[in-house]
């Protein structure tokens, strides 16, 4: 009997809250400024989506053209084996493809980082990192650190106006603007006593307003998010991925977090002026001050020096390569590191011998440089991890970092791409080296065995992401709970 009574009370409360949301909607509708504001925000969201789309389309177009051009070149070279060697042009064409020196120069494989589906929402650092590389036989890092992307410093200075910016900066702003004085406004204009006399508690009043704004924000987000998924499907042939779902969850958690912050300000603030002061400053501190301070602290604590890696572009040269003793020594050394070098020609005077020495030297350089590059990358990745893990004190930048990670548009994604490209470089050697070591010409079958770059999809799940999202949830619950405790003390 008692249980039924409780259930009835709960249902009544739920119904009354929903009815209250309806009332709030009626009040919300009365002000045309609110609709203007929402329309403005929706337009900003669509503009952000367009920016992400335009950036992604530019990358996809470039990758498609680049791949087609490189593959055509490889097909042309493979076709050179069928050239008529009785003619000068035919002989030249044949040598271009078959001779080791010519092939070393002309065999260029494409590697590319195709944007993942979530990239449409978060450009992140996608504009400062290369998304395609060319790979030749010679030293990997020598080639790598000559290839960059033309970044636009004028745009990088201020950041992108993408969906991520819309969510990270503008959602909180919208929540602050719509709700900073949800209760204080009624106190200021003296309406609160009237509202309270209808049996309404401060908590119910606030909850109904926050629920309404939460639903409105969710509606706006769904329009843009859905639009992004449709664009992905129709323009890039990409179906929704798990990273999209995680982006969706993250954006919602972040919105709930900001609702809880403003809810808390409302519970403690008693006037519009005070609330404006705290809500405005909360936004500024969370979106501007803390990210800058935390970035500064991370930068000071984790030093990253690029002078070593910046000097890897120089092509090895000198008389040492004409020294037979040096050559034999290098090959023998290399055999220990790469057993395939066991078959290398060690006959001084043979062209293949000098070429093998040259390639062995490049390989050894790569092995040495890899340590420095790994350490350089580790420093950068550590910085990003700390940013992502700073959600307790730096939620905006932490969520932004997680979103960039989901979009594979952060430094870690670039580094993964570099290592995958290095793997392609190693597989190219597997085709080129047997011919070099046995001092034979390349064959058409070698061209058929050339490796093809297959980008590996990163796992969107990570501990950082789980912690970050759980942290947002816990903080939101804390703020709501803390505010509700204060609201219970309100007597009208």
């Amino acid at each position, binding site marked *: 009997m008692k249980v039924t009574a409780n259930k009835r009370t709960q249902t009544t409360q739920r119904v009354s809250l929903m009815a209250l949301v309806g009332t709030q909607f009626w009040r919300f509708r009365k002000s045309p400024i609110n609709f203007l504001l929402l329309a403005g925000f929706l337009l900003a969201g669509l503009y952000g989506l367009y920016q992400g789309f335009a950036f992604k389309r530019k990358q996809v177009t470039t990758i498609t053209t680049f791949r087609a051009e490189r593959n055509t070149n490889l097909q042309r070279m493979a076709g050179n084996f069928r050239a008529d060697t009785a003619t000068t042009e035919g002989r030249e064409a044949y040598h271009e493809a078959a001779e080791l020196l010519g092939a070393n120069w002309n065999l260029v494989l494409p590697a590319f980082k195709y944007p993942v589906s979530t990239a449409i929402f978060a450009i992140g650092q996608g504009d400062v990192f290369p998304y395609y590389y060319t790979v030749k036989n010679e030293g990997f890092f020598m080639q790598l650190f000559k290839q960059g992307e033309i970044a*636009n*410093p004028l*745009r*990088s200075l201020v950041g992108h106006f993408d969906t991520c910016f819309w969510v990270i900066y503008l959602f909180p702003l919208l929540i602050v603007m719509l709700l900073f004085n949800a209760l204080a406004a009624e106190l200021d204009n003296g309406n609160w006593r009237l509202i309270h006399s209808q049996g309404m508690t401060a908590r119910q009043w606030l909850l109904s307003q926050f629920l309404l704004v939460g639903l409105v924000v969710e509606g706006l987000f769904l329009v843009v998010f859905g639009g992004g998924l449709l664009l992905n499907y129709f323009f890039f042939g990409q179906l929704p991925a798990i990273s999209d779902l995680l982006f969706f969850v993250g954006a919602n958690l972040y919105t709930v977090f900001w609702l809880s912050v403003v809810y808390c300000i409302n519970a403690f603030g008693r006037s519009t002026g005070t609330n*404006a002061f705290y809500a405005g400053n909360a936004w*500024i501190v969370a979106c501007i001050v803390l990210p800058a301070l935390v970035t500064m602290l991370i930068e000071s604590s984790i030093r990253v020096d690029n002078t070593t890696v910046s000097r890897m572009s120089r092509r090895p040269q000198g008389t040492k390569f004409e020294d037979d003793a040096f050559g034999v020594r290098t090959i023998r050394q290399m055999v220990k590191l790469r057993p395939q070098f066991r078959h290398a020609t060690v006959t001084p005077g043979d062209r293949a011998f000098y070429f093998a020495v040259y390639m062995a030297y490049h390989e050894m350089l790569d092995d040495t440089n890899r340590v420095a590059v790994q350490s350089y990358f580790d420093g950068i990745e550590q910085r990003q991890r700390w940013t992502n893990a700073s959600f307790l004190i730096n939620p905006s930048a932490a969520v932004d970092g997680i979103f960039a990670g989901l979009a594979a548009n952060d*430094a870690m994604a670039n580094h993964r791409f570099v290592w995958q490209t290095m793997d392609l470089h190693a597989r190219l050697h597997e085709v080129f080296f047997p011919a070099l070591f046995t001092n034979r010409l390349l064959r058409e079958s070698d061209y058929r065995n050339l490796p093809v770059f297959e980008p590996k999809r990163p796992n969107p799940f990570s501990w950082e992401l789980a912690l970050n999202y759980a942290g947002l949830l816990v903080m939101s619950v804390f703020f709501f709970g803390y505010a509700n405790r204060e609201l219970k003390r309100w007597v009208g």
Partner: protein
Amino acid sequence: MKLLILNEWRQWARERRLKALLVFGLAIGAAALWHQLDYQAQLLETRQDAQQESRREWLTQESKHPHMAAHFGNYAYKRPSQLHSFDPGLTPYTGSSVYMEPHRQNDFLFSQSQENGTGLRFGWLSPALVCQLVLPLLIILFSFNTIVGERERGTLPLLLAQGIGFKRIVFAKILATFLVFELGFTVFFALTLGLSRLLMAASVPTSTMLYVWSIYTMYIFCWSLLGVVVSARFRSVGGSMVALLLLWMFTAILMPRMAANVAENLFPLVTNYQFKRQISVAIENGLDGHDPKSDRALRLERKLLERYQVTRVEDLPFNFEGYVMQQGEEYSSKAYDGQFAKIFDTLEKQKRVQSWLSVLSPFMAVRSLSMAGSGSSMESEIDFQQQAEHFRRAFVQDMNRDMRDNSAYGTFDTYRLKPGKYAAMPDLQVLARSLSWSLARALPEHIWLAGWVLVLLALVLGMNEKKLYAR
């Protein structure tokens, strides 16, 4: 007036919230100053060492053929100047070093924005960022209730009843705000310059220092005016604060992003792929697209044989290979120049869009002027790249000339450079540009910043108590 200003300060001194804000401002300013001084001094040392190391390697390379020596190449590292510790501007977003070798202009790589993670997108803490972004915020929080607060408290009629003119009260409030922040800024700026001079052992011309100081003074005055003007336009303290905060968010956060994105949409930058492709096409098919490389080489050979009345290139009075090498270099340089000109032109157009849009944002105007004054603007970055490129061309030309004049045809494997040749080539010296050079393209921003101040002054002059109470 003096009493009114002192009274305003006395009131501020009583408010705990304002004291806390001031402490926050000082703390963030100190953090920014410490961080940039530490960072830039270390950067200068690292890059100076790297540049010296590159030079040492060049000088100590073994004697070899000039073209091989040219291929050994050199590195150019961008070094921070004294004012970079105040305003690093665009420097974190552009490459920091380049490898210079024959035949090609390599990309400037290793920008700080690649090394810093996504956090940098929220702004890189520097004294300039504090002055451009945080200082106006503090001004807002000090001034949002200057007039509306007196009105709400009912103290404004009391002041007026004492025979003090309304404009005098308004100007006293403006000056009270301006003087506090101007003094704070002046001390902060002087401290930044003094410490960076000490740490980086470099100096900046007095005119540049005065210029940067004066534009920030104007900016502070602008926000002081804005705070008081908005405060006088609203009937409630809350309304005034909301309006000022929204204005700050719009001018300092939204507008710069929108302007940069609109500029990029209007004038998109080519991708590196398109850029490289256009260059290779220009080199292969000729700058006009109808002059293939092979035809050019044949034409060149024929012309030389005719001019020197010989039948074989071996009989020319110089090494034909060296001559061809330099001609090829010059041709590829022309191709690079053409494509780079397009990129710089696009960037210039984007900057112009931003310059014009900065009419809506004093933040954008002061940011652009501050970068120009501090030598961290787009023009300064392009200038460094061009100076490095001139150096590349000079040393490659020097090596090609040696090959042409001192070696015989077909002696690529045997000819070696004479001792002292490497040292004869001077090291890369980057010229510091004058203030007038830096400001040449920043005229609109000067006009907008002055325009904001003048319009706000006009609004203040147009104020009177009757209008205030009529609202």
